[in-house]
């Protein structure tokens, strides 16, 4: 446990230093989070968005931004570290690579929380949106993130083996934006598309988060109506499949001698 804690703190420290080193990029990204949300909201509401709609959209949009960061960290991030040789150095650690990768994921999530959180505060204050976040939302958020990072592990594993997966990563970021219910609730999609959308990571998380944050439902209520059960199953599948796929890809990259290739 202490070992895992050290790894996480070490990764968070590194990420903070790198974040500050690239602060221009960081602030640009934060501006982009706000700008795109305002733009999309006005567009979708024909120029007259109401606070209730904004709040619903904001929950989905912020979750999508977490997805953007996770996918980016696990695909571009791994590729960049392959090029600099720091990934191979990590793989020479005596610590289990599973612990190191989990540490990296938690650090990535921590930084995303900081970035998205700051943007959310600005948006809530600027647009007058009511977002009554309670502790009930925390387990739902963490479950959503577990599924999301499982999905990101799939892309990370593909990066280790295939190297250039930018097209796939870009496509998935866009698919999630349009189909995970961030902009448009999935129950308004055609039946077949809704069924597909619900298999994606974060879709079920957004549904449950909206119920908990905006409708004030308790965990017991969302469990009883089955939406939380759906989230648990969805996230568990993504996390387990993503984790094992990543480990399989690590082995394959080692067999191919591709860990350090780019």
């Amino acid at each position, binding site marked *: 446990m202490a070992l895992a804690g050290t790894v996480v703190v070490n990764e968070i*420290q590194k990420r903070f230093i790198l974040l500050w*080193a690239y602060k221009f990029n960081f602030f640009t990204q934060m501006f982009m989070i706000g700008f795109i949300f305002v733009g999309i909201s006005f567009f979708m509401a024909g120029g007259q968005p109401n606070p209730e709609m904004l709040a619903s959209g904001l929950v989905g949009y912020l979750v999508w931004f977490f997805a953007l960061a996770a996918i980016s960290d696990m695909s571009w991030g791994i590729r960049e570290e392959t090029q*600099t*040789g720091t990934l191979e*150095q990590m*793989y020479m*650690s005596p610590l289990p690579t599973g612990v190191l990768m989990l540490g990296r994921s938690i650090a990535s999530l921590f930084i995303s929380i900081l970035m998205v959180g700051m943007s959310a505060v600005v948006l809530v204050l600027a647009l007058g949106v009511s977002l009554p976040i309670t502790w009930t939302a925390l387990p739902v958020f963490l479950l959503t993130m577990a599924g999301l990072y499982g999905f990101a592990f799939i892309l990370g594993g593909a990066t280790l083996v295939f190297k250039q997966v930018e097209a796939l990563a870009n496509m998935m970021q866009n698919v999630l934006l349009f189909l995970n219910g961030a902009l448009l609730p999935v129950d308004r999609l055609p039946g077949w598309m809704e069924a597909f959308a619900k298999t994606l990571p974060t879709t079920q998380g957004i549904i449950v988060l909206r119920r908990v944050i905006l409708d004030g439902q308790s965990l017991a209520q969302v469990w009883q109506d089955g939406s939380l059960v759906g989230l648990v199953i969805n996230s568990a599948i993504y996390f387990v499949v993503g984790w094992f796929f990543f480990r399989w890809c690590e082995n394959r990259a*080692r067999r191919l001698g591709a860990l350090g290739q780019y």
Partner: protein
Amino acid sequence: MTAAIEIDGLSKVYTKRKSPPVIAVDDLSLSIPAGQIFGFLGSNGAGKTTTIKMACGLVLPTGGSVRLHGFDVQRQRGQAMRQIGAVLEGTRNVYWRLTAWQNLLYFGRIKGVTGQPLKERAERLLRELELWERRNDPVRDFSRGMQQKVAIACALVADPPIVLLDEPTLGLDVKAGRTVKRWVEQLARNEGKTVVLTTHQMDLAESLCDQVAIMSQGKLIANRPTGELLGLFRQEGYELRFRGKIEESVAARFEGFSPREENGHTILSGTISEHGRLYRLLEIAEIQGLELLGVAQADPNLEEIFVELLDRAGKGEHSPAHPMNGRLPHATIREVI
């Protein structure tokens, strides 16, 4: 003497669909004693880096094993990795946006060292490498030599008994190269570490290494203490002295011989393992209209021996490397000497 690295029947075959398999390392067995500086030499693509990466657990072998102080890299990965620090060729190995100090602390922690011992070790390394004053500068602001020093320091931050350095002086200026060389020497002589280095700089290998192994096409073609290897070829070293300067294209006809100028004359030096070759070289000189001033036996350097061994391996010859009669009985191309 106990072995720091034991390589047993190691092989790596890369297979791809629609193309023939590539044998990168072919049944390599090697034992590297603790506390030595071991040179791993070979042309590009000989299999050195693949072998180093298999020792680091970065590439899975097709067969065989690597043990680091008795710990199997595949089966006892955690303990094996505690024995080793490596700087790999062609990459930065460290984060350029982080300072030297931050890099050392980061890599120390992922190698399982924390707290005060880590800070003390990091400080000592930075002071020894004359980087202490600039410890808070981002590595990207450093010269190439300083960046390489940071990479080496990071490889050593957990105080591993074995250090693998893949082309440690590549791209360094003379001064930085000398610092790295002096430091590598100190690591082995004063701290008792086993240093394995791959390099194309034969003078570096000759002056630093206690033992050298030469690889060609995935196979080990020589593995001897450096002095012994040089001694084996002592009787085969020749210098051909010609009047005036010889054009490069003409010198190239004397395969395996390297030219240098001295007092306005050209000296070609290399190894000749059978007397017939000497006469053939003299014929070439006559055809080219070169004025021969003299032929003398001379101690060959490691570079000349390296070229000669690769040449023999490439021709598939049996070893003619015996110092007394020109033939080593029972020697095969698998291990030229």
